[in-house]
């Protein structure tokens, strides 16, 4: 206890000293700090709503406690498994297809010696990153439209039956994932290209002297060289598995593809904001955040153990 107090005193004195010296910096930090408290930490506290029966008049803190009522309600609802499955499958598909492609793209770009061609490809593949979600989904809808979309026009041209892509639940995941890859692969490759540029040139010299082929050089020099970057990006991606983008899914959703496109985030939105079922939606959202946090911590500690790369 004594140590604790003296430490606290030590901190207090340090703080007082720093405050006298840097009071202007504390003034600067105050508004942004207030922002984080109000818009990030107050909502975290507000999440107790999940354990209460929300009453508009009594407010969050005055509403009566109901314990795990809304959690049980969700777990017992048959939609629970559908939502978890849809969220997980979409995320894993996204991870499986979307994670390696930027790496491959960067490795291939790294082999190109023609500077202009390389720069042009980078410029073009990076560009779709700047397209907004609304425009992206608009493009998908226009291209895949049952009659007027160019994909169906092309299909018919080659003698196939037109497909109502967006009305086909089984197509939903592929549409989501591949349009995402189209949009972000070039952007994601940048980070790997930078890592590749940082590899010690003497390793390439050595590989050359040893008579390594280009492929062997990629396998034995490039890949090990960017492995730490790969690990960190992988951790971040796995940590985001449950928070898969609401924005795009919501826009792509329609009554036909709902069996595959309803995920936790869109369900929270429709339950909470459209049906005003605040407590229930908060409970569902909370479950999602907690799973997310657990996943991130687990992946991070796993990566730390096997490769010494981690995000904290």
């Amino acid at each position, binding site marked *: 206890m004594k140590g604790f107090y003296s430490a606290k005193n030590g901190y207090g004195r340090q703080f007082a000293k720093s405050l006298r010296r*840097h009071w202007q*910096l504390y003034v600067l930090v105050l508004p*942004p700090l207030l922002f984080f408290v109000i818009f990030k*930490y107050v909502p975290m506290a*507000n999440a107790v709503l999940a354990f209460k029966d929300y009453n508009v008049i009594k407010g969050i803190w005055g509403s009566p406690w109901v314990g795990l009522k809304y959690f049980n309600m969700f777990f017992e609802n048959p939609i629970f498994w559908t939502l978890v499955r849809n969220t997980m499958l979409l995320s894993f598909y996204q991870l499986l297809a979307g994670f390696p492609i930027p790496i491959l793209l960067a490795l291939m770009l790294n082999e190109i010696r023609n500077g202009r061609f390389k720069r042009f490809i980078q*410029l073009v593949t990076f560009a779709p990153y700047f397209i907004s979600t609304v425009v992206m989904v608009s493009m998908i809808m*226009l291209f895949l439209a049952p009659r007027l979309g160019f994909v169906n026009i092309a299909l018919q041209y080659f003698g196939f039956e037109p497909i109502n892509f967006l009305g086909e639940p089984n197509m939903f995941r592929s549409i989501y994932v591949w349009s995402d890859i189209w949009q972000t692969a070039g952007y994601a490759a940048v*980070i790997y290209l930078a890592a590749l540029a940082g590899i010690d040139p003497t390793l390439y010299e050595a590989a050359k002297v040893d008579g390594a*082929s280009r492929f062997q050089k990629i396998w034995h020099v490039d890949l090990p060289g960017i492995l730490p970057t790969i690990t960190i990006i992988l951790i971040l991606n796995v940590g985001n598995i449950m928070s898969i983008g609401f924005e795009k899914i919501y826009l792509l959703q329609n009554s036909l593809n709902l069996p595959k496109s309803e995920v936790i985030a869109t369900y929270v939105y429709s339950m909470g904001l459209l049906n005003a079922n605040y407590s229930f939606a908060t409970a569902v959202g909370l479950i999602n955040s907690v799973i997310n946090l657990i996943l991130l911590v687990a992946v991070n500690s796993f990566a730390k153990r096997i490769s010494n790369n981690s995000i904290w």
Partner: protein
Amino acid sequence: MAISSTVPKRKIRESAGDRLFVFAIYVILSSVLVAVLYPLIYIVSSSISSPSAVVSGKVWLWPVDISFRGFQTIFKTPLIMTGYGNSLFYMAVGTLISVTLTVMLAYPLSRKTFFGRKGILMLVMFTMLFGGGLIPTYLVVKELGMIDSRLALLIPNAIWVWQVIIARSFFQSTIPDELAEASEIDGCSDWRFLGSVVLPLSKPIIAVLVLMYAVGQWNAYFDALIYLKSDKLFPLQLVLRSIIIQNNSAGAMDISIQVQRAQLAELLKYSLIVVATLPVLIIYPFVQRYFVQGMLVGSIKG
């Protein structure tokens, strides 16, 4: 140097396998190029083709019967122009607020003698890992009376943690501690040091912050969707959504006597996409390096 010039350079020739390998890479990358470029060109070409050419599927790469009917219609539609104006406003004001707040937070966090920086940093970073969720945040915004006001798009998401991290690591690596300490001894206050030394030295990172926030603000629709109700406040993205995505019940226009209007409506979608995306895509080649820089600064662990 004289020695090396006497020794003939022994260039290791590429083997046939290697040349095949490189050839394959060129082929794959060229297909990637086509796959990324084609949809973009198709949209632009359609937007400047005639309405009937678009609807009958005549456009497949280059514009057919060039016409600017789509763009003319856009500029005559008040809803779209209001949305455009709103988006410009949200982008300008939102970026100003966001960049200011980000620097206000990131700079003190970069100073080693600033007591509490570790605690504050952890507080800020933790919000990347865990959040209260949609409804609790919505209730806070509602409590503050921001529902259906412009503030709802400017304040609740004003600071992105990622931007704070990259700004902080930039300050840390560019502004030497000795410089800050020396000016402190000379009686220069922290504010003045920030204003007259740090900011002028930090133009690259300010550019990164401005661009990322501006593009983010221009492209955002989610906050508008949940917080705004009156369409005179809607940003362009929300207008786009209602025109292109919600109107997408194809088939309804079949028996319409207003075939022409239906065709124009279809053309309008392409023109709208171009109008909404062009500002960003035009400046993009000139600013790409700032984005790359931003990503790379952020990836340095610090």
